[in-house]
């Protein structure tokens, strides 16, 4: 009895230590890419900033300081340290709006990727497992979605659903989802030929178990890389929709919406335009840096290229 318990404990231990080793190896490859580490640090800083926004932001994001309209940033002529990055045309503090805006962008990324991954993986699993007409039917639908330029399809969906951040997220998730479906399907089809799947089948694993416990964990690497790419794409697309007036609506301090509101002042007040865009660029760049590092670390075929 005690022997059996000890044996089980050892198995447990070894599976934990195996996991630890895998993680350590992953980190070893990831950390070789200095850009990826920098991106990760930046990304964590952004997440912290978004979480603590109400505490960090020097002013409420929507408070209008009517006697300080279009104040330049503190280092420019006429700027004050009260408004470090200046104020917009309604006298709102730009820095505070940017800090609060990080919440929207990261939220958009998380929600969109969650919906797109869930939908895409399910469709890909079903198509890859069942093949035949189910596969053909599902993949043709994915082809149709992919034949529209993503932003155009998102715009049309928003026209149907009505403008707003939530609808923009649904639209973007729908547009990004076929990439996950295709990746999952391709990975499933190649994994199904492997021996471990056959042996699981022989032992009597049911279809659902085969799908989610046997095959899916082995398809994760490309999906994780794609998820990072989609995260940054979602942020860009949501900002673009906001910029075109079809995403988050004013006075929401969403970065794309802030740019749309700032457009008419571009030749008079450069700071209203510059900082929101810079925030988008830095966020997306940080995520893409992490994505490149993940690809190097997870996909040995593409490593060092």
């Amino acid at each position: 009895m005690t022997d059996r318990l000890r044996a089980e404990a050892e198995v447990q231990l070894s599976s934990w230590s195996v996991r630890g080793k895998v993680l350590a190896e992953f980190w070893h490859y990831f950390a070789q890419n200095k850009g990826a580490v920098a991106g990760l640090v930046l990304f964590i800083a952004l997440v912290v900033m978004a979480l603590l926004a109400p505490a960090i932001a020097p002013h409420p994001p929507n408070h209008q300081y009517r006697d300080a309209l279009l104040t330049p940033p503190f280092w420019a002529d006429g700027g004050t340290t009260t408004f470090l990055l200046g104020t917009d045309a309604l006298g709102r503090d730009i820095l505070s709006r940017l800090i609060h805006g990080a919440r929207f962008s990261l939220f958009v990324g998380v929600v969109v990727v969650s919906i797109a991954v869930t939908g895409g993986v399910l469709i890909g699993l079903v198509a890859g497992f069942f093949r035949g007409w189910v596969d053909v039917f599902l993949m043709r639908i994915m082809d149709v979605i992919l034949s529209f330029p993503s932003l155009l399809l998102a715009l049309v969906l928003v026209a149907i659903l009505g403008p707003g951040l939530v609808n923009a997220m649904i639209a973007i998730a729908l547009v990004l989802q076929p990439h996950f479906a295709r990746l999952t399907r391709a990975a499933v089809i190649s994994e199904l030929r492997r021996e471990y799947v056959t042996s699981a089948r022989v032992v009597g694993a049911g279809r659902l178990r085969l799908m989610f416990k046997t095959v899916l964990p082995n398809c994760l690497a490309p999906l994780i890389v794609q998820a990072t790419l989609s995260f940054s794409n979602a942020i860009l697309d949501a900002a673009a929709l906001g910029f075109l007036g079809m995403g988050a609506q004013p006075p929401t301090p969403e970065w794309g919406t802030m740019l749309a509101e700032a457009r008419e002042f571009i030749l008079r007040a450069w700071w209203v335009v510059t900082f929101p865009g810079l925030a988008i660029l830095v966020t997306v760049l940080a995520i893409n840096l992490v994505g490149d590092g993940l690809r190097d670390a997870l996909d040995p075929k593409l490593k060092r290229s």
Partner: protein
Amino acid sequence: MLKFIAGRLGLIIPTFIGITLVAFLFPRALPGDPVLMLAGERGVQPERYQQLMVQFGFDRPIWEQYLVYVGNMLQGDFGVSFSTKRPVLDDFLNLFPATLELSIFAMIFAIAIGIPAGILAAVKRGSVFDQAAMGVALTGYSMPIFWWGLLLIILFSGVLGWTPVSGRISLMYFFPSVTGFMTIDALLSGEPGAFKSAVSHLILPTIVLGTIPLAVIARQTRSAMLEVLAEDYVRTARAKGMSPRRVIGLHALRNAMIPVITTIGLQVGVLFAGAILTESIFSWPGIGKWMIDSISRRDYTVVQGGLVLIAGIVMLVNLVVDLLYGLINPRIRHQ
């Protein structure tokens, strides 16, 4: 090869049916009455409503409506825009050259810089140039191009005053449209300064639209070159004592270009999406601005027609790229 072509052609038919279904269902999915939607924002009298109902065919069963819709479309009838009162196809054909001209310039810009930069980065792998070029490429790839356009306007139009802010040519010039390409028409018109004006209007939109393709092409060229440079035949060529220039130009480049060409082809969808943003920033009278204006004007016949035409073009270009890829790479053909 014929089997390969037939297979690819067979795949596009269901895709095209899907595209038309999306466009067909679009006005019917909108909240509210589709007749009122297609008729425009102003209200209609009850008799006129009945008339429109019959005119748009909403009194018939839905599958019949779809067949009529596709039948009309195949004859080039995409409906009439309620804001311009002209056939959608005519408006599309009028505006398309503007988008095409901008896209061609953007692609030339992206290829002319992206491919040499990618090759050089791969050959000098790990060098300062490589790191700088890839850093710039990743930044370009992460760029919100609508903001990039505004920044360029602030710098080049606002501070320096070098380039105009919007449009295709200065209002001083007026000449008939022959090709629809402003640069060519300006040359043909023979008016002094017209060509220069057209080019100066093109510079900023070209940079903005070309930025993401440039970044993608540079990254793809670099990784394709690196892969090829590690191949045995390149090592053999080097061992034979061939000059590095010949090894790279003759052996490596040709093989590395195969995936790059595919990447270039696949940028068409990206260009259309980019055109929506670029054209709306620079008031460029092309398809992208037309679509976004029609969406905000609720001109849904135009949106419907534009969807099919744009997706159709993207689909056809992808098909051509696919076929070309099969032509130059037999491994794909025989899969």
